[in-house]
């Protein structure tokens, strides 16, 4: 009988507390959004399931939890805390990205820079709310709307905040169809949304091959701390474009990125144990994340309108919203908002140019913030 009582007192039913239950509900919402609503399912499904796994109550000291040194989940979490998974994800991302539209219209790269303003506004906001500089920098990077970059920088600067920051970053990436369109419509007139973009010129293979080499040199010389992200990103792109390593490029953009995404999503989800996740700080991070993402979208759109003051051939200011680095979600949203006004208006390729420059921009920002914090 004692054995039975002892067993029962070690079950999750007995050990559960309200925080685990709240997080299990959150995980279930993620799974619902990913599967039923198809909001970024490749991210929300592993994270949502990870939240369920991470919030099953267990007897401490068995080596089961993600924060216990000898657990399997802890070993898998190593890839997050060292910044390994984000680098691998960037390798695959590079092998998937086609920079043709960016090479055809390099001026759109400025919109990718403008959308990073959300990061720096949020840095100020987080400092004002009482976060320490390293925490503030980690929260601010959510404004880049780039999950792997957010995780990478947080792992380096404020590892105790990885859970809430990763969940906030991925949540807002998944909620692009909800967050971005109202901001785009609010800041643009119908006339502006109807602006059509000219056909892009053909880009030669040579340009596409040279770009990753030029990109990695110029960006990483400026912000060497972004080497782990941009180094692999441009390397992946070089594999894709050089034409002599198709097998490697194919593996990078399929098996490798998929494996890293599964492990990243699952472990980040599992890191949200109710007792360490549900704190006032996490709530503040979520609020700041929403502000960061909204400001990033608005900055891109406003900067596009400013560019139009000086350009003879106007650009559609909706493209500015694609300057955040949520690839390809925000580009798709820009295209859809453009088409809702004029079904014959095809903004997708131009939006992808802004989107891919947003990826580069947010990785540079991560490098810059990391460098700033080294001297603190």
């Amino acid at each position, binding site marked *: 009988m004692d054995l039975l009582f002892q067993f029962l007192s070690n079950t999750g039913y007995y050990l559960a507390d309200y925080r685990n239950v709240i997080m299990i509900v959150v995980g279930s919402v993620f799974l619902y959004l990913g599967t039923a609503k198809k909001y970024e399912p490749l991210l929300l499904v592993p994270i949502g399931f990870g939240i369920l796994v991470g919030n099953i109550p267990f007897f401490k000291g068995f080596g089961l939890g993600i924060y216990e040194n000898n657990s399997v989940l802890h070993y898998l979490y190593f890839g997050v805390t060292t910044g390994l998974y984000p680098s691998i994800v960037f390798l695959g991302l590079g092998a998937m990205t086609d920079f043709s539209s*960016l*090479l055809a219209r*390099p*001026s759109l*790269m*400025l919109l*990718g*820079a*403008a959308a*990073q*303003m959300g*990061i*720096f*506004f949020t*840095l*100020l906001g987080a*400092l*004002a*709310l*009482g976060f*320490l*500089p390293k925490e*503030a920098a980690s929260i601010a990077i959510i404004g880049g709307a780039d999950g792997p970059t957010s995780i990478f920088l947080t792992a380096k600067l404020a590892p105790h905040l990885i859970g809430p920051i990763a969940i906030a970053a991925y949540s807002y990436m998944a909620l692009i169809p909800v967050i971005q369109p109202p901001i785009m419509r609010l800041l643009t007139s119908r006339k502006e949304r109807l602006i059509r973009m000219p*056909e892009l010129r*053909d*880009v*030669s*293979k*040579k*340009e596409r091959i*040279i*770009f990753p080499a*030029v*990109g990695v040199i*110029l*960006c990483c010389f*400026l*912000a060497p701390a972004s080497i782990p992200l941009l180094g692999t990103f441009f390397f992946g792109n070089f594999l894709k474009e050089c034409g002599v390593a198709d097998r490697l490029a194919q593996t990078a953009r399929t098996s490798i990125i998929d494996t890293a995404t599964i492990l990243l999503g699952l472990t980040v989800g599992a890191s949200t144990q109710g007792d360490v996740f549900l704190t006032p700080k996490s709530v503040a991070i979520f609020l700041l994340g929403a502000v960061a993402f909204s400001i990033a979208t608005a900055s891109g759109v406003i900067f596009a309108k400013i560019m139009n003051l000086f350009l003879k051939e106007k650009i559609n200011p909706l493209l500015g919203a694609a300057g955040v680095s949520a690839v390809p979600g925000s580009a798709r949203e820009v295209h859809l908002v453009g088409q809702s006004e004029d079904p*014959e208006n*095809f903004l997708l390729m131009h939006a992808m140019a802004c989107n891919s*420059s947003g990826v*580069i*921009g947010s990785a*540079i*920002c991560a490098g*810059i*913030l990391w460098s*700033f914090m080294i001297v*603190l």
Partner: protein
Amino acid sequence: MYGFTAISTHNGWAMAIAGALIVFAGLLILATAISQLHKILMLLEKKHPDSKSNQNIPENDDPENQEDKPVSPLPKEFPTDLNEIACLYKPLIDETGDTFYLSDLYEIARKNDFPHPHITFTAFRESEILVPCGDGVFSWNPPTENEDNVNG
């Protein structure tokens, strides 16, 4: 510590302004570099007209491609009606044969300056003008035949 005091104490203003300027400068330099890239390549190719690499850049000016284009002259105003677009695509289909890979058709359409071929293909597939035969191979089902099938 909170508010503006916290920002000032932690050097927040300087970090935000310097960070924003650095990222702008970085992407501006990259944009400027890549905007000159094709011009530099063209210059290099003019200097070395016999170089082997000259033959494949840029794709549109490739002399080998010249014989491919144009298969069909495009009207000044590209039609919006799907059936009319399908008629313009007919000469391209004649070139590919009865069954073909979508990528081949895409390549020919692009060489002939057809606007937005990928979007057109999606519309063709939805209206069953392009019929999948499996293994990535497609066949052409012209709109008139399509209507006959529907009507019986």
